[in-house]
């Protein structure tokens, strides 16, 4: 199977091939370098004039892409490190995310604006890059009205998710790629010896006109799960490793729910799993305070009431990410942390 990076690179190539309105803008994208993480490698040679390498001006070129999207193109922006999204935050929150709603009140269909813009960016730590190149900052953008946030994982087809986003979105969309996910192998969920998968694709519920799938994963042949584990992006990889060890080493069986749509928040598959297990552990690489897991727990509690017996969050410590390997490993949630937490939650009642 290809890596997630291969899958995303193929998707960008397909998007450029299938729709001439697609352009890619970002820093250091030109071949032979092909972008800091190589997601755009080979594209500037194959599509001259459509992969634009920019000055170090995140707000400026994000703004350019917004203007291009308003005027009928379908630009894709790469922000080299997710940490630098803060430099473009005003463009994303005060401009891109507002325009469709703000401008389109009282307008006939033909006079409305649309804003088909995809902003891709790598997030996450575990590579020793230190406090300003390792963060998981998407929590600051989740819940922004008018902005869709997606996170691919290694399950299914991450490239298809990106391709659909580029070709079909009419809203600005933030596409959060975890750095360690790039080198992970894509898992063919139809051919797994170890796991059984179900995909939840609620197309009628999908805001931008395409589905952001949620994957449900169980250890193959295991008894009914007693806990629901939810995580996205690379954290879902670690959660799956924990899930396997819990089954084989501890005989604790959990169901893993992996959303690819973070905002707007789609709760249906998770709530269905919680109806079966009554226990929830939400795992994220972002900081714990006021984050994604907090929202997931709040919504689960609101929906299930007393049927939710136990709920916990596992997340990064509320600190910047240290550069030193042992310190960074301590600050970010690990497979061991997940296993420990699941054991506590399933054995204490």
């Amino acid at each position, binding site marked *: 199977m290809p890596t997630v990076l291969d899958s995303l690179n193929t998707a960008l190539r397909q998007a450029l091939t299938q729709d001439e309105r697609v*352009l890619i803008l970002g820093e250091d994208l030109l071949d032979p370098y092909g972008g800091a993480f190589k997601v755009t490698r080979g594209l500037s040679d194959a599509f001259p004039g459509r992969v*634009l390498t*920019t*000055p170090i*001006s995140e*707000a*400026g*070129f*994000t*703004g*350019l*892409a*917004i*203007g*291009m*999207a*308003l*005027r*009928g*193109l379908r*630009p894709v922006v790469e922000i080299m490190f997710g940490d630098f999204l803060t430099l473009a935050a*005003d*463009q994303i929150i*005060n*401009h891109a995310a*507002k*325009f469709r*709603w*703000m*401008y*389109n*009140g*009282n*307008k006939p269909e033909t*006079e409305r*604006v649309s804003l088909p813009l995809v902003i891709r960016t790598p997030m996450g730590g575990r590579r020793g890059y230190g406090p300003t190149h390792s963060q998981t900052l998407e929590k600051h953008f989740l819940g922004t009205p008018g902005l869709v946030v997606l996170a691919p994982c290694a399950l299914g087809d991450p490239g298809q998710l990106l391709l659909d986003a580029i070709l079909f979105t009419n809203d600005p969309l933030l596409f959060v790629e975890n750095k360690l996910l790039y080198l992970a192998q894509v898992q063919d969920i139809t051919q797994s010896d170890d796991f059984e998968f179900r995909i939840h694709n609620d197309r009628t519920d999908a805001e931008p006109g395409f589905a952001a799938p949620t994957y449900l994963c169980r250890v193959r042949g295991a008894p009914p799960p007693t806990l629901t584990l939810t995580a996205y992006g690379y954290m879902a990889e670690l959660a799956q490793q924990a899930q396997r060890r819990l089954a084989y080493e501890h005989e604790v069986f959990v169901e893993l729910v992996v959303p690819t749509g973070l905002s707007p928040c789609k709760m249906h598959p998770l709530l269905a799993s919680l109806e079966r297990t009554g226990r929830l552990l939400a795992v994220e690489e972002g900081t714990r305070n006021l984050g994604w897991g907090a929202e997931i727990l709040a919504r689960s509690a609101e929906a299930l009431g007393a049927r939710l017996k136990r709920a916990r969050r596992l997340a990064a410590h509320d600190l910047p990410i240290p550069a030193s390997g042992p310190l960074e490993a301590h600050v970010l949630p690990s497979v061991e942390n997940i296993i420990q937490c699941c054991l506590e939650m399933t054995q204490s009642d």
Partner: protein
Amino acid sequence: MLPQKNLWAMKTMQQIEAELYRAMFRIRRFEETVLDNFPKGVFFGTTHTYLGQEANAVGVLHHMNQDEVVFSNHRCHGHFLAYGGDARALFAELMGKASGVCGGRGGSQHLHWRNFYSNGVQGGIVPIAVGAALAEKRKGARAATVAFLGDGTLGEGVVYEALNLAALWQAPILFVVENNHIAQTTPVELALAGGISARFAAFDIPARELDTSDVMEILPAAGALLEQVRTQSAPRALILHTWRFGPHSKGDDTRPAETIARLRQSRDPLTLHAARLSPAEKEAIEAQVEDEIQRAYQQAFADPYSSIADL
């Protein structure tokens, strides 16, 4: 947009002069009507009036074709009306009515109609304007984009990212800087080091600078620059030193009353231009515009509020 532009070549100078006066007087009476009625509580939020700067919007936007694009800012009423926007829809937008330009969602600063866009954050829309210009260029259109900035906007870093990209990628855009010498309450001397034209020169963007309130000086300068933008598909700048007569928004003017009075005497674009019209012609235009603006206000006032069901 104004349909008469296609007939530009067929018009006499006298007709053009009358049109320009009408367009400027329309903005003047719109803004005065806004300020007169604000204390009654008919408008939501705040407003930034264009009093004194009318010649800028009218002199520049008179040249725009149907397919061309305008990006404006917080002080957008004059730009919107000069672009050809409807006075009733603008009053209604300020009143939060369903008939407003954006159904009352945006209010005074956040307008979109046809190819006209404004937003309330300083400088943020400038790179977006550059992107729009580049999109038109990529589509093969020979269309110019205009972006209006104020002297206060020049404090925002993103403006220089946008100028750099506009020059690097040769965006067909005209930057119009309206230096009204005051940003909210801060005089330009306390906010701006160096010169304005040097900022464009640094990016090799040719700039023309005018210190005038006479629409007949602005009109040809803007026309020539826009023609260069279209034919050479490259950025240009027009720096207009101007004066606003009203407060930044409402009742927040810290300048001495004598200063304003002196400006009104020497730099009023309506007085300067009225000298070119016969008294009868001037009176007729003013009566027609007065009637249009008062009817627009009354109609907007009678319109229903936007429905919560449409949110």
